[in-house]
């Protein structure tokens, strides 16, 4: 039985070390610093989600799960879109280019449908700082592997908790596609396409810890103010 309350270390989550390696390179922190920050833990990105077994299934929890999935899809879609917009993907070989463009298009489609389903309850798109990772083909592809693996772990953990049958069915369809993404990404970077014989789901707290350790999600820069203009007039 999976122990949902067991706190995993990043090393366990990131079996191949792809995420860790890419992020250490990007953030400049040492391996020890990075692992420490990754193990610290933090509050979930969105309120309303709980890993507690006593959390009550229902429409409210379904909305929270959908919104968390949307937040994660924002992160992924932004990752691929930025790499493509900056020309990083165009600079890769044909096989990798096709892979990255395909996954980017899929993630953007996932964002669109989750926003449509949530309507006015959809969370706003956060601001991301990928810290140069989208600007280097090597760090980009290796981080993509870790990101896709993490998506599978997230959906594997949340899909069974969705109360609405139709939503749950859709979540499983997303899950299988994300699993194919992960396998394709692993093949692209030359690591084992399937790491284990059994995929263990991750809790929201576990997923959130990894996301926060990346520092990809940042505050939107304050570009609007209410101060009196001091322009030349």
């Amino acid at each position, binding site marked *: 039985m999976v122990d949902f309350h067991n706190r995993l270390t990043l090393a366990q989550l990131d079996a191949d070390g792809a995420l860790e390696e890419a992020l250490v390179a990007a953030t400049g922190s040492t391996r020890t610093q990075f692992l420490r920050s990754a193990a610290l833990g933090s509050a979930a990105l969105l309120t309303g989600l709980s890993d507690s077994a006593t959390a009550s299934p229902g429409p409210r929890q379904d909305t929270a799960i959908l919104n968390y999935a949307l937040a994660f899809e924002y992160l992924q879609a932004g990752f691929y879109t930025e790499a493509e917009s*900056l020309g990083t993907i165009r600079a890769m070989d044909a096989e990798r280019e096709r892979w990255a463009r395909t996954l980017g298009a899929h993630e953007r489609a996932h964002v669109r*449908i989750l926003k449509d389903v949530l309507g006015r309850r959809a969370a706003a798109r956060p601001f991301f700082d990928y810290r140069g990772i989208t600007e280097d083909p090597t760090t980009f592809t290796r981080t993509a592997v870790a990101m896709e693996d993490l998506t599978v772990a997230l959906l594997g953990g949340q899909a069974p908790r969705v109360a609405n049958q139709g939503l749950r069915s859709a979540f499983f369809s997303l899950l299988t596609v994300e699993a194919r993404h992960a396998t394709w990404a692993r093949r692209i970077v030359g690591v084992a396409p399937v790491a284990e014989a059994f995929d263990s789901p991750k809790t929201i707290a576990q997923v959130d810890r990894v996301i926060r350790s990346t520092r990809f999600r940042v505050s939107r820069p304050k*570009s609007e103010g209410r101060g009196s203009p001091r*322009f030349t007039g």
Partner: protein
Amino acid sequence: MRSFARGPGWIAFAVFSTLAAVSVWAALTGRLGGNTDAAPPVDRRSAVAEAALPDPVPPAFVPPKPEALSGLDHVSFWSPVRRSIPVRVRANQNAAVIARLSTRTPEGTRNLVLILDRRRDARGTLWVRARFPSERNDAVGWVPRAALGGYGVVSTHLVVDVAKLTATLYRNGKRIFEAQVGVGMSENPTPTGEFYIRNKLTKYANAFYGPVAFGTSARSPTLTDWPAGGFVGIHGTNRPDLLPGRISHGCIRLRNTDILVLERLMPVGTPLTIV
């Protein structure tokens, strides 16, 4: 002792064994009677079990067809300045410094730069070629990527024509807005060149600037000692009767109804061309 293999008993055993093996093979493969197209026997227990299982639950949603990115030719990137940093003439730690970027604008918002290019130096450090606020036309230089924050993306572009006295906004290369403007008078001209929108101010109490004012990276070439650096703004006015015309100290003035429309359409970070 008599050998079993040499007698009639051995022949009978061999024939019986062969027939038995052929029968088993035929039963397993459905080739009994030489009819190779015959359907395999139905396992009725399996069919009963299948009938008892429900159909798959229809998914509550199906994502739309994935679409490739488009319009990248009209996309621009901007980035906030995370820490005060010198701007260098080349992507090299030892290159000459041509300016210093602050993290804040005079209005207290986050300082932004427009991203033009990227390059790694010999040490592997990623550098960004950026347009930055300056009194010089087309002021660009190199800063380390690590000094900047995440990239914001815009697909808009504002063009102000000081001869025609118009402001035109494009999105994905298509014109979506145009208005008459007031620009700098001859002694305080509006600078021409390539700039960008640096911030947006609202809800201030100063009718002179109208309801909305955009800060730009352009600076007046003449009012260099103006408070806060003499930056050129794009804003509304309490004197719409003067528009269009050459009536300002370098700022670009629009009627209040027009600036409110522009507020909806033009995000911060939009490139600005003044011709």
